[in-house]
């Protein structure tokens, strides 16, 4: 990829941490989506935390891409949590009527990881019960 990396996908246990470092244009967002969905399968990840704390705007395309990623990750067997949406960004998104659908959100990375862990533990418990 030419130039500095605009996003990173790191592995942490059975979880992936995907950080977006700067505002991405539409093609870069699609590239991010493709990379992430591929990595989920390759690393057999059970959870994905997408950190958007560095972004000061989330437009409709970015929101729908995040929603798509969540859906695709679910189909690939991983739960997705979006973390780090800034207050101003949240207000703007709500004003614009952007919906995140079933996508889970959490305050920050730590919170997001805890949320994914909780989900996985809950799922494991559920399976054991059955």
């Amino acid at each position, binding site marked *: 990829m030419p130039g500095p990396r605009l996003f990173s996908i790191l592995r942490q246990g059975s979880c992936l941490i995907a950080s977006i470092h700067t505002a991405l244009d539409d093609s870069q967002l699609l590239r991010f989506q493709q990379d992430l969905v591929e990595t989920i399968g390759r690393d057999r990840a059970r959870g994905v935390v997408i950190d958007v704390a560095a972004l000061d705007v989330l437009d409709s395309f970015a929101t729908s891409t995040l929603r798509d990623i969540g859906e695709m990750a679910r189909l690939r067997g991983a739960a997705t949590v979006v*973390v780090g*949406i*800034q*207050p101003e*960004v*949240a*207000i703007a*998104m*709500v*004003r614009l009527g952007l919906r*995140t659908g079933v996508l889970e*959100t*959490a*305050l*920050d990375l730590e*919170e*997001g990881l805890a*949320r994914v862990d909780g989900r996985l533990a809950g799922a494991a418990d559920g399976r054991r019960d059955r």
Partner: protein
Amino acid sequence: MNDEDDEVAGVTFGGATDQGRQTDDDELLPQLVSHLREHRNRLRQQWVSRIQGAHLLQAMTSQEMAAETTSVYDNYVEVLETGSVGALRDYARDLSERIIPRGVETQEVVGIVLLLRDVLARSLFEKYQRDLPLLNRVLDAYEPAANRIANTVAVSFVDERERVIRQQQDSIRELSTPVLRVRERLLILPIIGVLDTERARQLTEQLLSGIRAHRARVVVIDITGVPDVDEAVANHLVQTVDASRLMGASVIITGLSPEIAQTLVTIGVDLSRMDTIGDLQGGLEEAERLLGFSVTRDSEAAGP
């Protein structure tokens, strides 16, 4: 502005006789000022009795009245003398600051300044009534300055009052939407009073920054103290709930009165994404349950 006009007139019609009149006019004001200084006490007394006759400034004691009228009088004459309203403006502002809290109205302030103008004009009239052309010129010199003074005082008073109102509005606004932390990661937001669009916007901002600062996961918004909710405010609440959710916090709304519940259903606001619980107590219990807190009564402490 009036000074400039005079100058322009002097230049345009600068004949020999006009030149002579111009010098005369220049001496008129000092003459006028010294007349007003000389009869200061009498004129001021006259003014005070006119004020009392008009039932203005009844919030003041007679001592205060004497002190203030003296200052106003001196300032007034000074403006006539120097033509600069700066000092008067400062004084008027200072005076307004003192009398506004005591409920003095704009009409009173304007009224007393106009009374002073009239009292002084009468005394000039008395003095120069034998020489009508001179009286005309004296009034020509006096009236613009007097009007400017009345203007300055009125504007200063209104400015000061608006400043006070703005300040109070700001403090009410800040006081009215506190974001309080009850437990770790649990915030409550009691809303009291009418919610308008501006306040709802500010509330959303404060709540979201509160969520980030306290790392809150659950927020209880209590609207027991909100008398009425219309469609715009209801939509704002929905937006606040959505925005909080984007930041990872769930919101519980409590204290919806029966009237508000009926209104909301009647106007058809989509509240399906809002969690509501009857009262603040129930809301807090639900929030504690979500966060995994459990509150138990210490049986020994509760005993007699």
